[in-house]
């Protein structure tokens, strides 16, 4: 390849160390300012907005959803509704599932008795394994089947990125970022 054979990164590092650290402060800010100035210049020459009002309209909802005043109340309200739907909505299917599994348990018990199975076997398989599993399923499945689709909808509507934007303000204080997942 085209680099000199004697090259090692150490030389680069020593080159960097020669640079006066005192002069380094604020250079990143200056670089970013210059980059944005150039970007602005380029866009001013090549991009025309026929209808600025129309453009601003698309940001109207953004401004409400991410406003300092309304951002968090709206977020809490949305999450409140989602959780309420999840918990309240899950009750009915939960009890239906529990009833359904309960009926099957009745049949299973009858079958075990007809076969004269010992009590301990019935205890392990039906009262332990079957009842435990069916309870978990009937309690967990309905909330999950409600919560995840709603959350996916919020994400696809683009609401979750707005929430991340709101939360970013909070996370900025301890110098972390909310964008890491």
């Amino acid at each position, binding site marked *: *390849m085209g*680099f000199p054979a004697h090259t090692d990164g150490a030389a*680069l*590092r020593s080159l*960097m160390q020669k640079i006066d650290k005192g002069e380094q402060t604020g250079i990143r800010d200056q670089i970013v300012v*210059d980059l944005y100035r*150039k970007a602005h210049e380029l866009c001013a020459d090549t991009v025309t*907005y026929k209808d600025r009002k129309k453009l601003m309209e698309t940001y109207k909802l953004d401004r409400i959803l991410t406003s300092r005043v309304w951002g968090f109340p709206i977020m809490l309200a949305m999450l409140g509704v989602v959780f309420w739907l999840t918990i309240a909505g899950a009750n009915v299917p939960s009890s239906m599932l529990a009833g359904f599994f309960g009926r099957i348990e009745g049949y299973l018990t009858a079958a075990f008795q007809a076969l004269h199975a010992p009590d301990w076997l019935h205890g392990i398989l039906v009262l332990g394994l079957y009842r435990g599993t069916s309870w978990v399923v009937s309690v967990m499945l309905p909330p999950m089947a409600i919560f995840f689709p709603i959350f996916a909808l919020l994400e696809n509507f683009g609401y979750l990125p707005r929430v991340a934007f709101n939360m970013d303000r909070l996370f900025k204080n301890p110098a972390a970022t909310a964008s*890491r997942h």
Partner: protein
Amino acid sequence: MSTYRVALIGNPNTGKSTLFNALTGLRQHTGNWAGKTVVRAEGEYEYNGHTYNVIDLPGTYSLFSNSVDEEVARDYIVLDRPDVTVIVLDATAMERNMNLALQVLEMTSRAVVCLNLIDEAGKLGIEIREQLLAEKLGVPVVKISARNKQGITELLRQIENVAKRRIVPKPVQVKYSEEIERRIQELEPEVRRLIGDDYPARWIALRLLDGDDSIIAALERRLGANASQTKEMIADGLSCAH
């Protein structure tokens, strides 16, 4: 028939992945970048009898190595030097996106700028003069709508032009303040002498001024690996000759 490497880079939510899917279809696989918890998506397509290996770099707002994502994207462009880098910009937010394009153009000259979501921009009454922008940037500019598969053919054509060096772009360089420019002028020849012409000397000089350790470390690793690789190749060549 040859194989070219194409990298896609852009801000998050510019439809970069939609473009990736439109280009590669089902011929793709995902994994992780070695040693990093950053998703690496690779795919390929064929055009005019050549194979193009496309890599979807993580979406980033800048390339200042503020995060692992930014480092991965930066290292790939600077050190792995793809044949073509496609810079995907959101046509509805040009000014915000342009900043990344300028940073990429400091790192590589072999680039194509791709204005995605052009249909959305049209609906919002935004008009972009892509010819003028191409002149000003010094690289090909293509308007597309990845979602509607619009403008893809033109994009493929421009990627081919740059990959085959039918077009050799001369990208615009951001002019910094006098003070910074003066110090870049001082450093650049020195950097060029140390690393040769394969890496963007001006950009590395700027990073040195910025006190960016991570790029030096990455270069050290890469140059070290390359240097021993070259040695091995020479040794192989000698043993073959005998």
